[in-house]
């Protein structure tokens, strides 16, 4: 049994009788089967990552471009940090807070990346527990920034830093809906010290 057959099996390109013979060979050859499973895991990992974001696959190339990208990121971070610091007085307090030890029976909003979804989710009234669904590293820290989309521009209305996900698939924050005007908003979740693209979620405050 060779590598080519292994790849064809994992890609689903063997016909039924070939697949049956391949599988029986795997049962009789456990070490080979472990190689096949590793290939299956690699493929499933790639699919999982691509479901969340394609940023990892399209990141730019050469060393020089990396350095330029890094420099640009640093400059942007400094500008963004300065801007956020200057805006902090304008950012209303307690719009966005950490969701530790909060009862889970209140209003909630689940934000997940759903392909092909046309309707934006609606933010309920009250102090809303927002569940952000994605792929998180539980040991990492994340920042959550809330933007309001106006006709001409986008204003940051709240930001929360140093948040830990409550599970590898979920990060939760509290959002005070009563302090928000009606309109369209977006939440951006960024991992600290990471070059990954932020997770972006839009919703509507009716």
């Amino acid at each position, binding site marked *: 049994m060779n590598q080519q057959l292994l790849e064809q099996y994992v890609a689903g390109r063997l016909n039924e009788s070939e697949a049956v013979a391949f599988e029986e060979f795997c049962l009789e050859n456990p070490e080979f089967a472990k190689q096949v499973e590793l290939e299956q895991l*690699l493929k*499933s990992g790639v699919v999982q990552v691509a479901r969340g974001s394609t940023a990892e696959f399209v*990141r730019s190339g050469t060393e020089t471009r990396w350095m330029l990208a890094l420099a640009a990121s640093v400059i942007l971070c400094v500008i963004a940090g300065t801007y956020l610091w200057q805006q902090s007085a304008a950012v209303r307090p307690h719009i966005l807070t950490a969701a530790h030890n909060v009862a889970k029976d209140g209003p909630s909003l689940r934000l997940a990346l759903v392909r092909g979804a046309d309707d934006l989710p609606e933010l309920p009234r009250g102090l809303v527990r927002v569940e952000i669904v994605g792929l998180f590293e539980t040991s990492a820290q994340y920042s959550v920034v809330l933007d309001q989309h106006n006709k001409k521009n986008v204003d940051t209305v709240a930001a929360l830093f140093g948040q830990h996900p409550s599970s590898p698939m979920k990060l939760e924050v509290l959002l005070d809906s009563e302090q928000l005007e009606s309109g369209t908003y977006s939440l951006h979740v960024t991992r600290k010290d990471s070059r990954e693209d932020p997770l972006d979620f839009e919703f509507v405050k009716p």
Partner: protein
Amino acid sequence: MDFVPGGELSRRIREGDASAETELIRQFEPGLRVLLRRRTGGDVGLLQDLVQETLLIVIQRLRGDGIDDPGKLAAFAAQTARNLAIASLRKAERQKTDVDSEATERNADSSRGVVTLAEDIESALAVRALLRELPQPRDRLMLRRFYLEDHDKETICREMQLSEAAFNQALSRARRRFRQILEERGFTRRDLLGPGP
């Protein structure tokens, strides 16, 4: 791991040799995982349940009536696994009718969810780490086209102007590193990471 012919395993299990049952499990489990992984749509909890169920059925059969051709024990185990996967799929299809998906999610077996999540997360995190390490954007694109878009090797080589040797080398490097990352993350359960490719 030494291969023990199906006929011999069948005979020993029939005679009540418990160590033969252990050998059968060790021998067939990796292959059953491969077969069922393909048929359980990424539900690792279901995959593990079906592997266990298959092994149980095969062992009970060998303890009892035995099978017609003990030399074809692997074929019998594989067909049992396929039948269980089909039955499970049919059951899931029936349950899809009039189901409150949120309630189902809430009531789902939490232990299965944790296992599923853990393995999905591990492989996804390992791939993320792998992609971060790959020096050439060409390699990332290659992985995407090969594993995600299922393009065949010849097409990828032609369109990316790569020799087959260069493609194989890059792929082999990626596989090796993926395996190392999984090992570094402690992903050694079930003895998955046997001798490398």
